[in-house]
Every structure is written in structure tokens, then in C-alpha cells.
């Protein structure tokens, strides 16, 4: 990106690391075949006919 970041690299790294610490255990436990594109179908299933 051409712009210098507003936040410092350390601040960006800290906030992203915090997010990763929360999500990674759950993501690592996802079934191997879970598909990032199947959410709409899932909504449709739970929404009934």
C-alpha cells in the first residue's frame, strides 16, 4: 500500500494477534471438509422450506 499506516506496526500486530489467539483454536478444530462457501445453503436449510 502506498500509504504509511496510521497505527504503528506494533499496534496492528498486537490487535491482529489478539484476534488470532481467539479464533485459531476453533478454526483448527473445524472438520477437514468444511467449506467456506456453504454458509448461504446452511441459512437456507435452517430457514425451512
Amino acid at each position, binding site marked *: 500500500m502506498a*500509504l504509511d499506516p496510521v497505527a504503528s506496526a506494533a499496534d496492528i500486530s498486537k490487535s491482529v494477534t489478539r*484476534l488470532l489467539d*481467539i479464533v485459531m483454536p476453533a478454526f483448527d478444530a*473445524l472438520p477437514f471438509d468444511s467449506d467456506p462457501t456453504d454458509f448461504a445453503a*446452511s*441459512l437456507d436449510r435452517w*430457514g425451512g422450506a
Partner: protein
Amino acid sequence: MKLNELDLASASDALAKGQVSSMDLTNALLMKAASSRTNAFLRIDHELARARAREMDVERASGLYRGPLHGIPMAHKDMFHRVGVESSYGAALRLPLPSEDATVLRRLDEAGTVSIGVLNMSAFAVGPTGHNISKGHCRNPWGLDRITGGSSSGSAAAVAERASFASLGSDTAGSIRLPAAMCGVTGLKPTYGRVSRRGAMAFAFSLDAVGPIARTAKDCAMLMDAIAGADPADPTCSPRAGSQYVKSIADWSRGLRVGVPQNFFCEGLQPGVSNALKQSLEQLASMGCEIVPIQVPDLAIEDAATAVVIACEGLVQHQRWMREQPEAYGAQLRIRLERGAVIPAPVYLGALRQRARSLEQMMDAVFTKVDVLHCPVTPMTAPTLDSTDMDRGANVDDIVGSLTRFTRPWNYLGLPALAVPIGVDEHALPIGMQLIGRPFSEEVLLRVGHAYQSETSWHLQTPPPA
């Protein structure tokens, strides 16, 4: 009562009975918009609106009737494309003029509405407060030193100060529900894919939803009747046909199960918010609802995953414009978008893969036991503009996190959510409840909202005069 003070349904009835014309209603709103104290309007189209109103009146007089929105004037968030007309996205960005109308605007055109102008918003629909450094901050009509909530700031402010009968907004993490609650009006975030986004500015395309803000649930239903349903031009739009929302909201039945979270959504509430929520539950119980205490799944993962999706998809939308027109981007925007550049692709894909599992967990834990979940929109009423100005040093994570923590999980889960006014705090600032339902159950939420508003008067309260 002045004509601009009618709600949408009453204005429609008055038109149908020949008591008023579209021109009468349009002139009333134009006059109110021109004297707006909230900076809700970015542009007012006096002559175009009058020409359209005249056309709608002629059509009606000749026997052509388009439906209950025929001749109803309104204005929308400035992010829906109109052929040959600049959409500012609430920012000082130079963009090519659109070559097609947004599907939602085209559908409202076909329904006979009259556009009176375009409305303020957080720049690029990023920001839950309504601050806007290039267009001027939008101000809450209930307290001009207070935020409206964002990002559909102008939509809620204009409806609240009776300068628009209804308005389209968009909601990626709470952007319809937050301003609706803080401005004392009603707002619906539909199920992901329920309303076409073709021709609407995108923020985070996995989360964005277009929906109505209006005075009442019935008014929201009237807009949903016009805009919801499949759109071949938007591949993310569900192929399901839209429901008959107005018809279905009258079908109130006792015994609806309303879930009340015993965790997460009851934490950190201002006392006034807590009291209003309690009273709204008592009201729902008196109407025959079964109130069911319920444990909601922990939402920490969903909350963080939402932040991942917003950062990554937001940067996809903005990286070229940030490079070519950096002056259009304030500090708050850049801080939020820059994170997307350092989040690894597998993490972003993980956030998308997790969604179906999170939805399944929420459905199993909550929506197999209740029909509707009841919770706050925000833990607090509208704070001041000064205390929440993220371009002047207010902490972005603190502000965004505190305002959106009850709204953004529902974007991640794709579920419909309705904000309904339920009271005011000790400063006479509005408080809203949030009703969440199963996928594509907007008519159930609107039915509960309509029944509640048939028994209460919070939606009738008007902001203090100047």
C-alpha cells in the same frame, strides 16, 4: 398533525382516501428537510421530487395504482446507485457515475415512491457512531450533542425528525439497528441474502445487508414488501420469493416463545437500558408471549471472526481507492482497514468456514427452543459526539467494541434482527430492544414489533423541538 408527522402507513392511507396528494406530502417533507437540525441530508432534490410527485399524482388520478407506496416521498443512505447520479458513499471520493440503478431503488421506483434527496452516513458505511469528517457529523435529534449511531446515521435521524417517512440503510455490524435504537425509530436488518445488494456500495460482502428504517414495524414491512426477494442480478441474493410482510404482521398469535439471554447480552448494561428491557419483556408477557430464560452460546469466537471478515473484505473494497485517493480516508477508517493487510488468508477462510458451524450451534442452543430472542441493541444510550470521535483520539477498539458487541454477532450468523424503541433514559434519550429470529423469519420479528407497538407508545414519541 402536520403531514410530515404522519407515519408511512398513515400517509399511505391518506393518499388512498384522497385526503392528501403526493405533492402535499412531498412538499411537507422538503420543507422539514430544508430546516433539518441534524445534518441528515447530503442533498435535497426539490425540483426532481416535485416533478416525480406530480407524475405520481397524475398516475393515481388516471386510475393507475402501483400499490401502498405510490406517491410516498422518502430519502435513502447515499450508497445506492442511480444511473448518472453521484453516490458519495459519505466520503470525499471521486468515482465514475453509476451505469445502472440499484435493484432496491428500482423496486421502490416501480412501487411509486418519490425520492427527495440523499442522506448522510458514516464514510463508506464504516463506523458505528455517525461521525463524518468530510460531510459533517450527523446529530441525534434527541440531543444535538449526541451521536446518531452509524453507519446509517442520516436514515435514522431523518426518520426520527420526521423529514422522511422511511429510509433504506445498510447493516454490516449494526449499522441499521444502532442508529434506529439511538434515534428512537424502528430498523430491520434482514437475513443475509434476503434483499438484493446489486448496485449498493459494499463494505464486507459476506456480512452486508440492506434494510429499512422507519417509524414502525408496519412501515418497515411496507418497504420489505417492495424490496425483498430474489434478484438474478445479485448472485448472493437468496432465490426465495419475498414474503407478504404487511399481510402477515396482523396475524398475532399468543404463545410465541421469546428467549431472554441469561449471559453475555445482559452484561454491562446502563441501568436505564436494563429497566427498559425488563419492562418490554413484561409487556410482551402481558400480550401472551411465553418468556423463556436461555443460555446463549459464547460469542467470543464469532465476535473476533467478524472483525477478521470486516478487516479483510473491507480492505479488498478499499485498497485501490486508499492508494489512489488517500485524502478520502480518515484515521478511524484506516486503522480498521489496515489490519486486513496482515491477516493471513487461511485465517480469513477460517472465519468463513466457521460460520455454518456457529449458526448450527446457535440454532441448536436457542432457536430450537424459542421463536425469537430478545436482547439490547446497545448497552448504552447515545453517547456524546465529543467522547466518541475516533478521528480525534477516542480509542477505536473501545468505541467499536462497546457499541457493536450486541449487534455484530447477528451479521456473522446471517440472522434477521429488528430494533424497536422501548423507552428513554434519564436524559430522555431513546432505548431499543433487539429481536432476533431464525433465517428468513423477518415476518415473525415484524409481527412481534407491530404487536408491541400496538400496545405501547414509545414509537410515537417525538424528539424535542429546537
